[in-house]
């Protein structure tokens, strides 16, 4: 069958692209280490400079790029499917803004300077609070509209509190650190960050990946999905908590990286025959590819200036999204 074939090709191509970009991410950096040296250093027992760079700097960076990208792509695909709207994105339910607020508070109170893991931990705690509020607001009957409105309210409040922290920050260095952190980056992350984020992401992915068939049924609307045996309350719970756990953890370790969760599912949907269940793995791989590629680009484009990943994804992502919208518009007209 033509459709299934194209999907398998897309899946294979994206897997290959992700693998290649992951390896490239390990090889690109200011230290300029040769290919053979890098690979052998990655697995070496020695504690020389090259081994340190590979194991302590580049490996966590590449791993986080992979994990964060997959998280953004997967949760974007799930939320678009659940809300039946191609404009949905992970930030919609308020988790990203709240995780940012938690991190900002950790910087603002100097907690993160005294105890570095306090930053991601505070971000995670804030995203847990946010998701509990959103889920409680949406209630047991689980109206989609209430969920979105609650998400918007929580996002706005978290954004305002972040601004307040910046506003009241007595120290310009703290303000600068907050600003830089919020731009989103994979630079100078350690394996601690990887181990901190991984359990939350794995739990989130597991929840999100079970939703494929339910999201397929939701193509025909909530009532028809329910009549096909889909438990809509369970779907909402898994979509919200899966997104919260994985995106909360992603934001906690890297800051906000925009547009990936919105553009990637949108871009890959035509390759999946419009079937949300197929979009989940495709979009996860696509998100990983995009974030890894963007993180390689920031190192190549401006090696000295520490260009932030979130800035690049928005600069490239927004015009690209406009182009997608333009193309769709012409198709409709």
């Amino acid at each position, binding site marked *: 069958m*033509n*459709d299934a074939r194209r999907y398998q090709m897309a899946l294979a191509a994206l897997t290959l692209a992700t693998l290649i970009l992951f390896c490239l991410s390990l090889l690109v950096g200011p230290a300029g280490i040769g290919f053979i040296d890098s690979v052998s250093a990655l697995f070496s027992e020695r504690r020389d400079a090259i081994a340190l760079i590979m194991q302590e700097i580049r490996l966590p960076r590449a791993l986080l790029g992979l994990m964060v990208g997959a998280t953004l792509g997967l949760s974007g695909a799930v939320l678009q499917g659940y809300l*039946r*709207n191609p404009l949905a994105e992970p930030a919609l339910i308020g988790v990203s803004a709240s995780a940012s607020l938690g991190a900002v508070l950790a910087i603002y109170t100097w907690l993160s300077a005294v105890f570095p893991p306090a930053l991601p931990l505070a971000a995670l705690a804030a995203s847990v609070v946010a998701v509990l509020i959103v889920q409680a607001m949406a209630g047991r009957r689980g109206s989609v509209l209430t969920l979105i409105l609650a998400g918007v309210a929580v996002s706005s409040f978290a954004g305002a509190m972040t601004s307040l922290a910046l506003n009241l920050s007595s120290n310009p260095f703290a303000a600068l650190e907050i600003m830089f952190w919020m731009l989103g980056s994979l630079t100078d992350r350690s394996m601690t960050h990887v181990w901190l984020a991984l359990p939350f992401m794995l739990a989130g992915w597991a929840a999100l990946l079970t939703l494929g*068939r339910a999201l*397929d*049924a*939701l*193509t*025909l*609307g909530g*009532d*028809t999905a*329910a*009549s*096909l*045996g*889909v*438990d809509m309350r369970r779907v909402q719970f898994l979509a919200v908590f899966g997104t919260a756990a994985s995106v909360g953890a992603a934001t906690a370790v890297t800051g906000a990286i925009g547009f990936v969760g919105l553009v990637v599912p949108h871009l890959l*949907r*035509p390759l999946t*025959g*419009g*079937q*949300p269940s197929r979009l989940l793995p495709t979009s996860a791989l696509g998100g990983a590819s995009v974030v890894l590629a963007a993180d390689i680009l920031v190192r190549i484009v401006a090696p000295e200036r520490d260009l932030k990943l979130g800035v690049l994804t928005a600069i490239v992502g927004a015009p690209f999204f406009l182009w997608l919208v333009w193309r769709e518009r012409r198709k409709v007209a």
Partner: protein
Amino acid sequence: MTLLSVSHLSAALGGRPVLHDISFDVGPGELVGLIGPNGAGKSTLLRALMGLTPASGAIVLDGEDGGDLTATRRALKVAYMAQSRDVAWAMPVEALVALGRLPHLPRLSPMRAADRAAVDAAMRLMDVEAHRDRQATALSGGELARVLAARALAQETPLLLADEPAAGLDPSHQIGLMQVFHSLAQEGRSVVVSTHDLGLAARSCTRLILLDRGRVVADGTPEAVVTANNLKSVYGVEAYFGEVEGRMVVLPLGLSTPSSKEHRA
């Protein structure tokens, strides 16, 4: 024996009572037409039977209490065609019809031979095989309606509830759809369809239930339900009644006189 038993069903939407104390049974072999004016409660009744709208009273589906059924058990007993024909994504017709097999598929299992056969049979019955690879969002309204009907048929349930499935179909496909429902009934299944087409309902259904302002005002054979009196008091219309080849023909002609409308108010 009954496939669907409703007793003392009442429901409210936004605090306003919509259904009042509705009771009826549907047995195998029945093709029941649910008729009534706009706002009579036809869609709410079908939604309440599916557990999509909270309602008081008892609903028994194929021998099991509707309230105790898990979502999947219910989906194996009753298929539902919603009035809305909104399709969110550009999915090929075949994949859309295959959604009807979801309740039959074990977790993580792909479609099996029996599932494919059911999907093919449903597409053949609804005359949409030729559109198999087309995207559902690019179909005409009537084509999409038939694809959605095929989706419900692929579910292969003993009971089918359809909310205005014939709306927007051309005459040949309207008749075709009702013939398919009729043959389902003859296999021993039950079908309940809501419709505004009184002529189609009177011609095709074995039984009609007339709803008005949330109450059952008539329940019986088409001849017993679609009477000049009922049409005047419930719809406020005068109609032509006739008979072709032993089957009833009814055609609304015009609004009835103001005096009968007063009676309605």
